């Protein structure tokens, strides 16, 4: 289980071109420079967590990668199909759940798309909800449907913008599990925006911290999954990340900043 859930990228030769290649990206709104000379690579099949304070430009970066916005300078190249799941699931309330998922597919006959949508709903454990209206779903179920819609097109890159932050703690744990499962199965690169340090530590191959418009910190986590938060290596990394995010609590200060954590800073 643990090995199967590990990052496929680790097995690939380093010559494989990245799924995402961002160079010198800049985006400003009026006088506010949100992204400034940002570089970022995401390897095929890599799960990258993007941490940053509120307003640090995480969503802006995702919108650029999704093609919903254009940069003022620089390039953001994505290899393959990109799809998105947002913090609010954004299911169209006037389309049934299966139809919503099928909207993520742009090819194939209506029948094929419907079948594929139902298959994906099965994968996220929502087989029975295929024909209901989205309004009847719970928050967690809606987010599962949203994930199914994002995966149905077999994207090369899955962009997740704080997809779990509105869920209750128990549902969030289930969703972490689900994400790791579908990720292992579909082998997409994932860029997961979150402001939950623990979420990043539990899930990601690499955690990057966005600050002042560019990548301020990058931390590789070559740890097997499933991970436990009390794992001493994670505890050390948490301290580093909280420090990078400018959080100075008694909790963060008490956590030992070990040599392992320092090494991981690249």
């Amino acid at each position: 289980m643990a090995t199967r859930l590990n990052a496929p990228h680790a097995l690939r030769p380093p010559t494989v071109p990245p799924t995402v290649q961002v160079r010198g990206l800049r985006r400003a709104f009026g006088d506010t420079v949100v992204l400034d000379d940002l570089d970022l690579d995401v390897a095929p099949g890599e799960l990258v967590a993007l941490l940053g304070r509120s307003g640090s430009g995480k969503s802006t970066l995702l919108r650029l990668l999704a093609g919903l916005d254009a940069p003022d300078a620089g390039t953001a190249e994505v290899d393959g199909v990109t799809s998105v799941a947002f913090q609010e699931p954004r299911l169209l309330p006037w389309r049934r759940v299966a139809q919503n998922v099928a909207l993520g597919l742009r090819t194939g006959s209506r029948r094929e798309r419907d079948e594929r949508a139902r298959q994906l709903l099965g994968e996220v454990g929502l087989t029975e909800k295929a024909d209901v209206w989205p309004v009847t779903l719970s928050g967690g179920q809606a987010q599962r449907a949203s994930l199914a819609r994002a995966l149905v097109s077999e994207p090369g890159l899955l962009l997740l913008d704080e997809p779990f932050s509105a869920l209750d703690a128990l549902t969030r744990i289930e969703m972490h599990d689900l994400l790791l499962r579908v990720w292992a199965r579909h082998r997409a690169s994932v860029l997961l925006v979150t402001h939950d340090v623990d979420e990043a530590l539990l899930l990601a191959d690499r955690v990057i911290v966005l600050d002042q418009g560019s990548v301020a910190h990058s931390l590789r986590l070559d740890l097997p999954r499933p991970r436990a938060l009390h794992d001493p290596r994670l505890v050390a990394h948490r301290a580093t990340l909280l420090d990078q995010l400018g959080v100075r609590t008694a909790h963060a200060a008490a956590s030992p900043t070990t040599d392992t954590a320092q090494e991981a800073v690249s």
Partner: protein
Amino acid sequence: MSLTAPLARTRRPRRPGQPRRAWRRAISPLALLAVWQLASSTGVLPREKLDSPLNVLDSLVGLWTDGRLLDAIQVSVTRVLVGFALGAVVGVGLAVVAGLSRIGEDVVDAPMQMLRTLPHFGLLPLFILWFGIDEAPKYALIALGVAFPLYVNTFAGIRGVDPKYLDAARAFGLGWTERLRHVVLPGALPSTLVGLRLSLGVAWLTLIVAEQINTTAGIGYLVSDAAGFGRTGEVVAGLLIYSVLGLLTDALVRILERKALAWRLG
């Protein structure tokens, strides 16, 4: 005609021991009918001013059996249908143009807002000059009355569609026409249906006015012809038919609303 159309009536649960509300509400209309009948029978209310309820019923049966009523209904309903269809195409069409683009809004909305303040009945003399005295000016007047409530509500509905849904649709690669089909139009539908109900009220009202002038067929003709000969029973019978037709279309829209907006309640 009411200016606000309630979308759904909440029904209060009947408390046990309370006298049945429906019967209580029927008492005063029935009493009014009885007083009316009494006034007619005793000669207080002369027949040439207003016939008795029983004679109204009699006229209704008479008009039905000699086929004049059905003919009149056919003519009048056709007028409303044609006028409504024209007005709906124009109103909804312009709303889509104005709702979807800033240019469209600038070109369409300003004149529409100006024209909206014109009392459309006041245009009847002009319409007779332009379109003659046959069916055309009646169609035009009804169409004009119908177009505005549909325009205003559909425009508001389109503008009220949550941009997050449009963003999501774009992120999944839905093109312009698909976004219109899956997001904009269904999202605007609740508001459009409010406009539909208002506009049908306007359509019947406009029909009544338009049928007063230069008609040789239809319910309006029936009424004015009867009035000319002092047959007040037939006059009231014609008015009754108008209101029944109005109620029928309102009921149809309610059914349509319940079907089309099922997604709201699940």
